């Protein structure tokens, strides 16, 4: 029984590791400028955690294999070094490991989150609401019209509650359901929630940020590859949470200009 | 191989100690051979009261941090001045702590037999009880005053926190009054134990300190 158990643990450990090593399921290819360092940090952690996982399971299995016998009259033995050795070992190995991960991870985090957006970053506002994202481009004047919550009316497609009759800034704001951006251009995304907590998650962009109702947060990124990607909500927001999404279209600058014109005409 | 050193000393009943229902660990170990730790633990009631004090403190700490976060998070905070009756109730509560301390000493002395035949030791407990009720009534008057000013629970975060903190505190004070009534009934039936008295007194003083803290918090932050 004990030997079977030991073998089971080893088989499970190896079987668990295979899909990771073979990359059977892996994160999609990165399309952002800041993504590669996150991916590196990820694979580094994967290697360290994987070794720790396999080592611990193997040692557990081997000890179960070796010592699960009645052995009447036999004396118990102590692992050389005892608890002191283990504690020192844990402090040294795990301590150094987590310190390394922590320091490098902090650097990655700082690179992503603590750097200000560039001066030429293109501002786009995204508004999350039950259960859709809407995007707003400031138009030629570069200014976003003020949001009047009492004017928000989805049945007339006034998703942002902008005052088109009285507010001059509102005339050229372009509101879309799709998020189109030019490739290789830094985007400064201003995040606003209309109702509840939502989240903005694009796997390929390595971007993930919650919307905070009552507080506008922003993030910035640069996409490097043309294509169509999914934006999904990851913060439970109600019954339609599973279907709260939008599409990110990374286009060439020409296509984007064309698209924007087309959208402006449709307003 | 093994040798039995002596018959295991069995204890007939652990609760022979006068006023404590602390475990048998309070007894001095009978045998020198064994690595026994002499550790005089207090009766469970007194550690329990610290547990209660800690839990209540955590709760009010949570409310306090909520108040700080809430006040810092937005611009809709409207200050208002506290109803002046609160200063009166504060004095009443402090006075009640003093009377309770007098009562505690008298009852302790009475139980030790130092002052047999002196005046009814319960008298000061009744005074404390009365002062406690006056305090709660005073808080109620304060709420009525705010209501008259049009400040309801949901009017503004400041009034929300005011009601929240004072009502929660008043409920805990009522709990303390329940404790005093419990002590009184035990006293009259002659089955009061000192640690119960001490525990209730500690709780009551804690309510006192907590109220002063809350008053300062409300004064500074509201």
């Amino acid at each position, binding site marked *: 029984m004990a030997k079977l158990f030991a073998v089971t643990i080893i088989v499970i450990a190896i079987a668990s590791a295979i899909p990771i090593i073979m990359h059977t399921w892996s994160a999609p290819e990165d399309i952002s400028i800041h993504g590669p360092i996150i991916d590196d940090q990820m694979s580094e952690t994967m290697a360290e955690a994987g070794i720790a996982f396999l080592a611990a399971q193997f040692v557990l299995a081997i000890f179960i294999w070796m010592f699960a016998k009645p052995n009447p009259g036999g004396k118990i033995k102590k692992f050389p070094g005892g608890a002191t050795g283990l504690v020192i070992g844990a402090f040294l190995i795990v301590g150094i490991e987590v310190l390394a991960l922590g320091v490098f991870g902090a650097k990655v985090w700082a690179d992503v989150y603590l750097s200000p957006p560039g001066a030429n970053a293109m501002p786009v506002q995204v508004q999350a*609401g*039950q*259960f*859709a*994202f809407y995007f707003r481009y400031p138009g030629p004047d570069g200014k976003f019209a003020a949001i009047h919550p009492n004017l928000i009316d*989805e*049945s*007339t*497609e006034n*998703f942002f509650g902008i005052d088109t009759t009285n507010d001059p800034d509102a005339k050229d704001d372009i509101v*879309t*359901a*799709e998020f189109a951006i030019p490739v290789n251009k830094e985007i400064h995304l201003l995040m606003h929630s209309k109702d509840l907590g939502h989240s903005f998650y694009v796997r390929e962009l390595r971007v993930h940020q919650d919307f905070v109702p009552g507080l506008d947060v922003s993030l910035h990124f640069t996409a490097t590859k043309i294509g169509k990607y999914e934006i999904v909500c990851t913060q439970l927001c*109600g*019954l*339609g949470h599973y*279907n*709260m*999404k*939008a*599409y990110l279209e990374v286009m060439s600058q020409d296509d984007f200009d064309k698209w924007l014109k087309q959208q402006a005409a*449709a*307003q | 191989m093994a040798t039995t050193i002596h018959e295991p000393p069995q204890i007939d009943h652990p609760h022979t100690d006068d006023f404590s229902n602390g475990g048998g660990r309070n007894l001095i170990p009978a045998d020198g051979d064994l690595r026994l730790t002499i550790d005089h633990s207090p009766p469970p009631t007194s550690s329990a009261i610290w547990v209660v004090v800690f839990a209540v403190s955590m709760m009010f700490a949570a409310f306090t941090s909520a108040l700080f976060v809430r006040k810092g998070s937005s611009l809709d905070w409207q200050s208002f001045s506290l109803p002046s009756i609160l200063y009166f109730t504060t004095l009443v509560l402090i006075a009640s702590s003093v009377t309770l301390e007098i009562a505690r000493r008298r009852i302790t002395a009475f139980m030790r037999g130092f002052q047999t035949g002196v005046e009814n030791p319960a008298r000061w407990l009744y005074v404390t009880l009365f002062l406690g009720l006056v305090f709660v009534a005073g808080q109620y008057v304060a709420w009525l005053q705010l209501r008259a000013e049009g400040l309801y629970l949901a009017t503004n975060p400041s009034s929300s926190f005011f009601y929240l903190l004072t009502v929660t505190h008043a409920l805990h004070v009522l709990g303390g009054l329940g404790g005093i009534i419990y002590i009184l009934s035990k006293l009259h039936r002659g089955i009061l134990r000192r640690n119960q008295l001490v525990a209730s007194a500690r709780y009551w003083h804690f309510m006192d300190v907590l109220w002063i803290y809350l008053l300062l918090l409300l004064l500074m932050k509201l």
Partner: protein
Amino acid sequence: MKRQDNSKLAAVSVCLLLCLVVAGLSLSLTNWEVSAAPEGKITGTVKLDGTAPHMKGIDMSKDPWCVKQHANDPAHLELVVVGKDNGLGNVVLYISEGLSGDALNAKPTAVPVFDQKNCLYTPHVLAMDVGQEFKVETSDQTAHNIHPEPNPLTGNIPWNQSQPPGAPPVTKSWKAVEMIHVKCNIHPWMSGYFAVVKGPYAITGEDGSYTIENVPPGSYTVTAWQETYGNQTAKVTVAGGQSAKADFTFKAK
């Protein structure tokens, strides 16, 4: 013999009386309509004065299934639906004053159906009587939620429930007169109305014409309600078995 005749007469009259009672009973039980004067109807057209406002297109890109359904037929808002000759569609007409008794309280047995089709509501406005049962169905392969938002003060209770593809219809009714906005939160552009009225009602087709059937003779105020332009009223008198006419014109803003 005279006595015999009398007794015959008595027997006959008793028989007649019995017949009358039976007839009366059955009449009262079957609500035999012959007893009342023949009912009339109100017809007319609703038109829009001016140019129809531009109805924005709907970008359904959040749900690719919806996009696919509208690949060849772009969807647009239905706030104002104008047909030929400026006929105004989706206008609810009902008798707001003058009804009484049975005509007011009669409940139609028909069950109107509100379908969710291609990520839009069909019909856009569903009219019904107070207490009348209606059905909400889905023809779509994507889940919707039906979220009517009545004013809580009217006594109508709001509800909000999903209908996944293939789910059985939801049958409901409303307690009070109200124009209730209904929306789907999963597809925020989906917007429609439950027009809950008392008594006979009609809704205009795309050409703006309507007919309110089963109106007993009398003088009435007819109200026309359009979701963007609001209410208009007209006085009409319906004669038994006749059809009265009431036309309405809404001004484009």
